[in-house]
């Protein structure tokens, strides 16, 4: 076998050969660029750090709300007085397991808290179970106990909500539950805002005025033995609520569960048939539509009208048959009001009431707001609505409507939150110019003339004007004997600043109360009639007498 292998050798050719780089890069320039880049990076890092330092303040604020989950912002009145304050309190507890020398600890504790029961504390120490030694400790004692340096002493920081005005603003402020969640009033409607911000919430209410108004309501609650009462004082030009009291009320510090319906916020949640206070709206609507003027005469007015099964009659049988529009309002004529309503017809009266915010649910700062009971308009309904029967609304909406009618016809929204409000002249006009100038003097005459029904509120110096409303309370299928007596007032009528609503829920006559006449000399003992003129008007008069000097001198409108 010839296993011959042929080996072929090939010459290895090394292809490597040094060549000059063909790129056009300039090494010298690249170095400079690199240094420049490094410096740029450094300067960017510095800039980022500077920006970071600049934004630290904002981050701290954010951190604050996340750390203090139980924190809620304070609430102040218009003068900066605390209505609600969140205060820190420290509870001191002892963990017996960590106590090194029980005897020494007890001696030290006795020096700081000499009044405590140390037999009980000794027993607790022996149980080896954590216990609270002192809740809401004073700052002095806290310093002393922490200086002991005992590891077994534990401090727990807690936040407590304090209401220094107790009952005064119970319905406005509302309550919070154990989970720090608002369950009523502003605590509920501003729940998130109060939790997120550190800035206090400033309200439009005035503590002094609120106190004086509440004091009068409490006093007259015992005189007229009413089921409850409410009063609202509001600036007619910007809707700021200076006072809003609903009685009975409750102490917010007690944190009681309120289940009794009598404790509802009558000012905003109570929906009532308010009676003759609505006649002002009927007249204003007639003037707005140009269908009547204040001196328009209505002749041969009947004393009684039949509408379907029900009859409409005058409260005062001595009322003349021929009356001008002004006299209808002053003497609170039912039939005259029906005639004006009939001139207006359903569409126009309904549109006017809607415009001044009577018919629909009001959008307000607190959620406890009542909804006027809807009804079907018809001929008889038009007649009853014209003099304020068969139609319901809340006292807050009544205040708003009177404010609009008296302030020149400008739209306002009642508010509890203090803000920079514009002058109404710059805002939306919803009622023609000149209507207020015609209505306000009539409201004044209701107070300062003998024919008027609100003479008891004629307090010298305030130019009070207003309208009374006495209505029977509705029950299923009709009316009860219980009444709702209302006074809707404005003052001073020459240039209205305030609207005051006083409503007494189911008042009774008083045989002992002595009335001081305002439009004539003398006094009268006992309530002759259970009407607004003898009940809520008297309350309104006493309120204005007391709050008037404060309103006049404190320049509260600022």
């Amino acid at each position, binding site marked *: 076998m010839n296993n011959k292998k042929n080996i072929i050798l090939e010459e290895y050719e090394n292809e490597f050969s040094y060549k000059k780089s063909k790129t056009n890069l300039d090494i010298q320039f690249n170095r400079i660029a690199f240094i420049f880049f490094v410096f740029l990076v450094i*300067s960017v890092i510095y800039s980022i750090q500077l920006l970071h330092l600049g934004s630290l303040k904002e981050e701290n604020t954010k951190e604050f709300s996340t750390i203090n989950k139980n924190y809620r912002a304070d609430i102040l009145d218009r003068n900066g007085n605390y209505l609600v304050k969140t205060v820190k309190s420290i509870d001191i507890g002892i963990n017996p397991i960590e106590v090194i020398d029980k005897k020494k600890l007890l001696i030290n504790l006795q020096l700081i808290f000499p009044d405590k029961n140390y037999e009980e504390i000794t027993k607790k120490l022996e149980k080896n179970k954590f216990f609270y030694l002192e809740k809401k400790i004073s700052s002095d004692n806290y310093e002393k106990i922490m200086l002991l340096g005992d590891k077994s002493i534990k401090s727990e920081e807690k936040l407590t909500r304090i209401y*220094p*005005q107790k009952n005064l603003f119970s319905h406005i402020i509302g309550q919070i539950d154990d989970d720090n969640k608002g369950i009523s009033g502003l605590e509920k409607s501003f729940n998130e805002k109060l939790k997120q911000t550190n800035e206090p919430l400033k309200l439009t209410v005035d503590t002094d005025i609120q106190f004086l108004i509440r004091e009068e309501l409490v006093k007259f609650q015992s005189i007229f033995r009413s089921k409850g009462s409410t009063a609202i004082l509001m600036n007619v030009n910007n809707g700021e609520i200076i006072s809003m009291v609903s009685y009975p009320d409750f102490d917010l510090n007690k944190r009681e569960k309120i289940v009794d319906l009598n404790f509802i916020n009558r000012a905003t949640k109570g929906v009532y048939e308010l009676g003759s206070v609505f006649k002002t709206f009927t007249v204003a609507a007639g003037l707005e539509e140009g269908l009547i003027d204040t001196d328009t005469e209505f002749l041969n007015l009947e004393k009684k009208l039949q509408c379907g099964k029900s009859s409409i009659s005058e409260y005062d049988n001595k009322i003349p048959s021929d009356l001008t529009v002004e006299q209808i309002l002053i003497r609170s004529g039912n039939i005259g009001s029906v005639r004006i309503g009939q001139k207006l017809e359903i569409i126009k009266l309904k549109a006017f009431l809607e415009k001044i915010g009577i018919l629909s649910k009001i959008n307000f700062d607190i959620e406890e707001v009542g909804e006027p009971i809807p009804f079907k308009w018809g001929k008889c309904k038009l007649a009853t609505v014209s003099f304020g029967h068969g139609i319901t609304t809340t006292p807050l909406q009544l205040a708003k409507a009177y404010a609009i009618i008296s302030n020149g016809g400008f739209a306002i929204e009642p508010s509890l939150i203090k803000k920079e409000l514009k002058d109404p002249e710059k805002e939306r006009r919803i009622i023609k110019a000149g209507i207020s100038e015609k209505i306000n003097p009539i409201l004044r005459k209701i107070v300062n003339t003998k024919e008027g029904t609100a003479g008891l509120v004629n307090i*010298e110096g305030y130019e009070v004007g207003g309208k009374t409303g006495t209505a029977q309370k509705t029950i299923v299928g009709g009316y009860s004997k219980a009444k709702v007596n209302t006074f809707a007032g404005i003052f001073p009528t020459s240039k209205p600043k305030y609207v005051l609503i006083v409503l007494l829920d189911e008042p009774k006559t008083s045989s002992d109360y002595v009335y001081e006449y305002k439009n004539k000399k003398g006094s009268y003992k006992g309530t002759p009639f259970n009407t607004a003129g003898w009940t809520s008007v008297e309350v309104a008069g006493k309120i204005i*007498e007391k709050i008037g*000097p404060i309103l006049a001198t404190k320049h509260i409108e600022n």
Partner: protein
Amino acid sequence: MKQLVVAVIFVLILITSLIKTSTKEIEDQIFIVKENIRPLKSELEDVLLEFNYLSSPEKLVQYQTQYFEKDLIKIEIMNIKEIIKNNETLEIKDLISKSGNE
């Protein structure tokens, strides 16, 4: 030109560092002042709360009945006077005109 740009950048960074150092000192001072203000602010709030409680209308009425024999009197607006300063003279006027605006 390139050297000049580099020099400018270097100077700028140097100045930034110097400013940063000096502002850090100020920041520290601000921080200390803020930390000192914080407890004072808290103390002020507590004192204000106490003042609001003790000077609340309810408390004032309570003190009045407790310490004074005379009752509080109602001020009539017609008796309130207004002091108007006219250059060097003081003029006292009724707050509400006796004749009224009606």
